[in-house]
């Protein structure tokens, strides 16, 4: 079990590395685009496409692998003011809802993303099914993550990292 957590921690840090790399690429491509336009009067369309691709990827990648439960933006008025038993039930219901809806729609999502192979991006000529494959990665990762949360809630264990009530107590 300890080893599993260790490996998980290592993977999480690598996921963070990737997210930071995406952000750096986005920023750098943007600067290159501005510089080449203003300094050399030579616009680089590929750079702007890379920028927007990284924006899409960093958000979905981050949501899949980088965000910790405490980083999520949620409406915690009720959740923060009830006891641990009620929290467990709420977590159970919320993750069940997500699992059913994301899970049930997964084939349709797969169908859409793979359909996009008919188009290529306008500068870098990347096929859209590749550009958009991040959504599949995102959906599957979120499903696995919420399955884990659901199981923890059922067993009533491992929920400590999910505690996110009143930070002052």
């Amino acid at each position, binding site marked *: 079990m300890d080893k599993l957590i260790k490996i998980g921690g290592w993977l999480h840090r690598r996921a963070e590395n990737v997210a930071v790399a995406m*952000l750096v690429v986005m920023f750098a491509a943007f600067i290159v685009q501005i510089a080449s336009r203003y300094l050399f009067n030579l616009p680089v369309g590929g750079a702007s496409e890379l920028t*927007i691709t990284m924006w899409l990827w960093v958000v979905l990648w981050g949501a899949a692998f980088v*965000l910790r439960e405490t980083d999520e*933006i949620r409406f*915690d*008025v009720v959740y923060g003011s009830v006891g641990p038993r009620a929290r467990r039930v709420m977590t159970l219901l919320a993750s069940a809802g997500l699992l059913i809806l994301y899970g*049930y729609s997964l084939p349709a999502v797969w169908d859409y993303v793979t359909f996009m192979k008919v188009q290529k991006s306008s500068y870098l000529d990347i096929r859209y099914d590749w550009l958009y494959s991040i959504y599949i990665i995102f*959906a599957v990762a979120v499903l696995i993550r919420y399955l884990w949360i659901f199981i923890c809630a059922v067993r009533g264990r491992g929920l400590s990292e999910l505690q996110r009530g009143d930070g002052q107590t």
Partner: protein
Amino acid sequence: MSLTDPFTLSILSIVLLCILGLPIGHAMIASSILYLMLAGLDMGTAAEQLLNGMFSSYILLAVPLFIVAAELMNAGSMTLRLLAFCNAFVGRFPGGLALVNVVQSIVFAGMSGSAIADAAGAGKLMQKMMTEGGKYPPAFAAALTASTAVIGPIIPPSIPMVIYALVSDASIGFLFLAGVVPGLLMGLVQAVIVVFSARRRNFPVEKPVPLRELPRVTLDAFPALMMPVVLLGGIYGGATTPTEAAAIAALYALLISAFLYRSITLSSAYASLLSSARTTTSIGMLIAGALVFNYVVTVENIPSTLSAWLTGFDLSPLAFLLLVNAVLLILGCLLEGTTILLIIVPVLIPTANALGIDMVHFGVVCVVNIMLGLITPPYGLLLFVMTNISGCSLRRIVREVLPFLMALLVALLLITVLPGLSLWLPRQFGYSG
């Protein structure tokens, strides 16, 4: 509309999943999928709307770029120097640091186009400074940081105004200018509340910075103070567009911190980029959720229904504007700002036009409303951000934010009934409206 129709059920689902504590972005996506499923539509559309929406919203790139800029300013002590500068001038008054918080937001508004970036960047530091050694109650500091951050997008540059220009065809240049006076007014009313609270609650005064120190503090902050000049000079003087200004801001912060202040290391740069990536993701997921839910709202023809309802009243321009305020404030409690700008405001524009309301003035009114939505419970993005930063519960922050919200509502009322507040400055620059 019955309780079993897909739209009602999807709305109920959002409310329920949010209350149960699911992250808001996921709640909106999941509930949109529920709608598509019940309405017998292609569920792949959820992915389609999210992906195409994110991929075509070039303007939204300003959001992560401004976040990176703010993080780099913090990591590289630019923010600290700026805060020291603000402190040297207003710290000596009762509630000194709280006033610094107000002035800080006005100064930073000239560099940043996003309220979230202000709260997550300089706001984070203000929160730390105000609560260090128990000077101010954390919830008060968080509430003040949230409510001052709304000034960010009123004073140019401004992401919401760019989006408004997109849906209204109003001129971005004049819109930006129109925000200056209202932004200062919003700072002023908040300063008034701070002074009153300081008297009543006995907030501390900062040790006055001696007059002979002022030149040094100013010089120290000078490169940071040049940021608005670089930015707005860039936009108005002929170098960059508003989105590009965000990237320039980040680059400027990086260069100043690395080479002039020499206060940034590789590891602190990595840490601030990671933090930027987290913030970008959290906020990006909210936008993603709104993009998907937009589809549901559009399919259900909510905009045209609302438009028909509004024209049914046969209102005077002022009454219409007041009604718009009410509608946007209520929606602001429930929806995210970009969603409102992209879905609701276009519905109001034809009516406003027909009533002869100036489109630039209308834009300022709409954007101020949407910014107030960021601090109105239960759905207030800035409140969530500050919950995250301060560790205080939403409940406590909401209680402390109320006086500031009231003051800002007074400012909103003035901005609504006195178009001159918005239009005076653009007119000095040749606006004919």
